[in-house]
């Protein structure tokens, strides 16, 4: 909302400076978004007098002037035709910036004569386009600040334009008068009374018939109007045009300009119909839907069902409270005008405006709430002004419906007000504050003024009191701890798991990403998503149309972007929500990581190599371990289709509980997402990891056996599709008490072993429990290992 300082002062009697006003506005919740102050760029320009002007010795059109300034007499060379002895001028001293020329003045020589400054024209100071000569002032003292002179003599030239943001609860401040009322209530001046007006009703009864249809009675409370016959429409007077222009509005014609004035000055939208173009009675109703309508903005609309419209014999002529129609709009030829002031149901206006996608000043105000108590007076004031500007005979008022009674009162609990805000505001001050805002106090009941639709309860009174008392004065008061001593831990198991997983992944060399929760349908479909349930109805772009079913597509797209920038070795991870449906709660936290390219750049030690599935597996296991997953898990196949069918494993607790998946991504998926592969990665579901059993912090005693450990190596030849874990489990089962660990240390496929065969080498670590083992005892265990493994795998011990 924009207004000028002088416009504000039409309503507010004040001596406050611009800065004070700006600060107060912001403090009151009418946040200043910008201010354009022409005086700013005139800072430093002073008034001077030309004492003498003589022709330049070497130039016909130049004059050498001696100028009286606040710094004594100066010699200035000037080319203006009106530069002459005795005139009062505006001086720019050396070093000053001239806005209209975009230059900084310096002492210089013009055709050999020194010049110490410049006398400015209106255009050079951006006051107007006038550039026929330098400014000649009718008054002013040497040394006087030019901006001050303008403020006193031509205030419009230095009238600051203030723009404030209005929160939705303050429709009353959508008119300049409402802003002035707030400032006055704060004590920044006094609210001037509304000017008198004199409406002479000379036109008899109003011939226009209006009716509110039954289906619109809840949407239009009152619809009132007067006809003015014999108006002469044309450009509005200078003062009105200037006023509208000052806040960026285009003057149209006197009739229209009056409605715009009321809208911005008093937050009172009105509408003017060209009565000659209205055919028959006017009916306010809810549209059936589908009607064609051309707005005053000359755009075509199709009216949505239920919208409040004003119709006549020709159909829809106006969308109530939102926009008038082109066909009945006022023009220069209008002679009979029907002036309308209505009070609409603001919810209906909000819904109608949103459905039509019309953002008009009228809708903006009608949906936030205008003052119903002002409805009839506004009509009369507008008619009086129109007659004053355009002449004409005003008829009686025609009214359909009635002005609603919005009177209400709430109890002001002055103690609660203090306790809620935490400021000691004397009870009397609280009452006085409300009264200054237009509330009427009756005992401790506060009657709400009709222009404050936002005040709907006791808490709103507190808000008004606090706002006026100024929250900048609020003093901090400590909030006591809920209990004395060390605060209790507050993180949940899941929150701790996420943090542990995050820090562990970073420690393992992964860079954490935060990617968008929505991705494109194609990428979502590749990972089991992309259905309508997870679709955003109004995405900001087609790349962000679906909630991600998995973190991998986002990470892979990040990898593709990095590859395009020349980064080929990547370790990326993310922790975040994924969606399997569109209902609240149909989301799961995932931890996902990908490895692309090599383990590092090529290096002198030859240590870098291509990443592979076992890197991803080790990292997945490290993360699971960090978040407290059991050490004993199964690795099963049969994961989702976006994994390489032969190169992935599910980390499971039983066949139905999957804690995570690791593996290589399917080459087709990578190709679809433009990622240069191969890519390996993992996905973990930390919520699937069982909750730790409730136990103390104690870890039990450690058993440290002093007896010498024995290690024995074995190599078995088995079929190539036998999984290594089968051998490990079989070997470990040979003597559960003695065998501490079984490790695989070699795998060899094919070669001399022949097609379809491989060799797996194991180290079995035997820890004697209570006595050193004799050779035969060790041999017995070794034999058992061979037996178990060959039985479990059908393999043979390699000779």
């Amino acid at each position, binding site marked *: 909302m924009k207004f000028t300082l002088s416009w504000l002062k039409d309503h507010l009697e004040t001596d406050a400076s611009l800065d004070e006003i700006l600060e107060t506005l912001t403090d009151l919740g009418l946040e200043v978004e910008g201010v354009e102050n022409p005086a700013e760029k005139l800072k430093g320009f002073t008034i001077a007098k030309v004492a003498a002007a003589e022709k330049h010795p070497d130039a016909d059109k130049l004059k050498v002037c001696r100028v009286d300034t606040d710094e004594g007499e100066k010699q200035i060379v000037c080319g203006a035709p009106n530069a002459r002895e005795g005139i009062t001028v505006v001086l720019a001293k050396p070093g000053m910036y001239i806005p209209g020329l975009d230059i900084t003045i310096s002492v210089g020589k013009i055709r050999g004569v020194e010049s110490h400054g410049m006398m400015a024209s209106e255009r050079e100071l951006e006051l107007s386009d006038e550039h026929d000569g330098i400014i000649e002032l009718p008054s002013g003292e040497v040394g006087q600040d030019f901006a001050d002179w303008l403020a006193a003599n031509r205030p419009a030239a230095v009238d600051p334009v203030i723009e404030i943001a209005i929160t939705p609860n303050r429709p009353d401040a959508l008119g300049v008068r409402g802003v002035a009322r707030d400032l006055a209530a704060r004590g920044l001046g006094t609210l001037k009374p509304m000017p008198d007006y004199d409406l002479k009703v000379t036109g008899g009864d109003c011939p226009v018939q209006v009716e509110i249809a039954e289906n619109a009675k809840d949407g239009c409370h009152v619809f009132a109007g007067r006809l003015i016959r014999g108006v002469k429409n044309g450009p509005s007077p200078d003062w009105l045009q200037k006023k509208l222009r000052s806040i960026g509005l285009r003057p149209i014609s006197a009739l229209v300009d009056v409605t715009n004035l009321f809208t911005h000055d008093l937050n009172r939208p009105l509408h003017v119909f060209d009565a000659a173009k209205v055919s028959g009675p006017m009916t306010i109703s809810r549209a059936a839907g589908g009607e064609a309508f051309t707005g005053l903005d000359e755009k075509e609309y199709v009216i949505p069902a239920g919208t409040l419209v004003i119709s006549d014999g020709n159909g829809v002529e106006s969308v109530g409270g939102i926009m008038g129609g082109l066909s009945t709009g006022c023009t220069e030829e209008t002679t009979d005008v029907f002036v309308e002031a209505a009070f609409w149901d603001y919810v209906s206006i909000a819904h109608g405006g949103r459905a039509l996608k019309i953002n008009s000043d009228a809708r903006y105000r009608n949906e936030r709430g205008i003052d119903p108590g002002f409805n009839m007076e506004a009509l009369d004031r507008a008619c009086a002004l129109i007659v004053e500007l355009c002449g004409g005979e005003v008829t009686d008022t025609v009214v359909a419906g009635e002005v609603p009674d919005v009177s209400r009162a709430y109890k002001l609990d002055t103690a609660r007000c203090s306790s809620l805000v935490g400021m000691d505001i004397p009870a009397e001050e609280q009452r006085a504050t409300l009264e200054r805002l237009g509330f009427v106090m009756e005992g401790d009941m506060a009657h709400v003024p009709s222009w404050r639709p936002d005040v709907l309860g006791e808490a709103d009174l507190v808000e008004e009191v606090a706002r006026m008392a100024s929250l900048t004065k609020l003093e901090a008061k*400590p909030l006591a701890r809920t209990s004395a001593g060390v605060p209790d831990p*507050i993180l949940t198991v899941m929150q701790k798991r996420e943090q542990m997983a995050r820090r562990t992944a970073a420690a393992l*060399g992964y860079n954490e990403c935060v990617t*968008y929760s929505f991705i494109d349908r194609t990428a979502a479909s590749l990972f089991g998503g992309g259905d309508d349930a997870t679709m955003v109805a109004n995405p900001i772009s087609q790349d962000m149309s679906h909630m991600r079913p998995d973190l991998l597509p986002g990470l892979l797209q990040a990898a593709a972007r990095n590859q395009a920038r020349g980064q080929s070795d990547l370790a990326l991870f993310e922790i975040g929500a994924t969606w399997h449906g569109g209902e609240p709660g149909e989301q799961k936290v995932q931890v996902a990581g990908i490895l692309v390219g090599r383990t590092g750049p090529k290096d002198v030690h030859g240590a870098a190599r291509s990443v592979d599935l076992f890197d991803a597996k080790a990292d997945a296991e490290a993360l699971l371990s960090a978040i407290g997953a059991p050490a004993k898990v199964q690795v099963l196949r049969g994961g989702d289709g976006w994994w390489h069918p032969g190169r992935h494993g599910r980390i499971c607790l039983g066949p139905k509980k999957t804690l995570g998946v690791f593996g290589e991504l399917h080459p087709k998926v990578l190709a679809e997402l433009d990622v240069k592969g191969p890519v390996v990665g993992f996905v973990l579901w930390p919520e699937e990891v069982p909750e730790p059993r409730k136990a103390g912090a104690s870890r039990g005693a450690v058993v440290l056996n002093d007896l010498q450990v024995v290690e024995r190596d074995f190599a078995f030849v088995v079929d190539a599709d036998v999984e290594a874990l089968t051998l490990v489990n079989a070997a470990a089962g040979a003597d559960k008490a003695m065998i501490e660990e079984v490790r695989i240390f070699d795998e060899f496929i094919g070669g001399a072993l022949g097609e379809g065969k491989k060799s797996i080498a194991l180290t079995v670590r035997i820890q004697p429990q209570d006595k050193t083992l004799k050779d035969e005892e060790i041999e017995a265990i070794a034999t058992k290992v061979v037996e178990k493994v060959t039985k479990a795998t059908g393999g043979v011990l390699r000779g």
Partner: protein
Amino acid sequence: MDDLKAKWLGAIGEAADEASLEDLRVQAVGKKGEISLKMRELGKMTPEERQVAGPALNALKDEINTALAAKKTALADAALDERLKTEWLDVTLPGRDRRTGTVHPVSQVWEEVTAIFADMGFAVAEGPQIETDWYNFDALNIPSHHPARAEMDTFYMHRAEGDDRPPHVLRTHTSPVQIRSMEAQGAPIRTISPGRVYRADYDQTHTPMFHQVEGLAIDRDISMANLKWVLEEFFSAYFGTSVKTRFRASHFPFTEPSAEVDIQCSWEGGTVKVGEGDDWLEVLGSGMVHPKVLSAAGVDPAEWQGFAFGMGIDRIAMLKYGIPDLRAFFDSDLRWLRHYGFPALQVPTIRGGV
């Protein structure tokens, strides 16, 4: 005797390697060595002669053994020195590469914020990001016609044909979590709700997804003055310097009274410094929880009151760490992640400073 001593010690001193040293040992103190043979002669001596020659021979043998050991060590040391001289490596070659991971600033700040508020007794609550219309709006005193709905640039979820419920939304703030927390726990309550939120907007300081943290404290006598204290404590701990706040009246449907909160800052050369200077920077919205919001969450407003606030995690991360562009947060540019990311073990703590 003195001749013997001079002979053997001299020879040991001149031995050039371990082999010749071993030869000398055998010749001198070996079983058939000169000293050993001399010792055998002791038996033939008179007790008086033996009294003198015995200790002298023993002393000589010890002396030779010591000399042999010392020479052996000296030779070994010399040999090692010689070998080490040849074992020269170019230590300016790079060490074996190790990948360095990073934690995203959003996560780091998440932990910083939760660490500080935990110390003031605030729990951390999270909730669904797809929300019902009711939790995101109605329960927060934003009825369907409220202009705030339009101003929030809400993302709506698709509604299947025939499903006449109002469409779910991507939560526009984490305030719905406050409602869910109060429903679950009642009052008194202190909780913060950090998380992802969504609004349809995109430019240098707006992305369609961003992160917010909201705070809620409800008790019998919590006031706006307490809110100011909590926020000043928070900002001072967060920025690591004393930070003043300024409250300005504002409006949010879910709080009353409402205030915009500015923090003290200075602008120099286009960069902002928090906690100094005379300027103010708007960082959050706050207020006393609206009675209707308490009622909607099943908390009796006649008995309980308290404050709520909300601020952008990304925004305060940008302020603290001097990150210029919000869009880059979600682009995963490796160069950006490395530059603005945090070491794995830099866990924010109250005792170490966040």
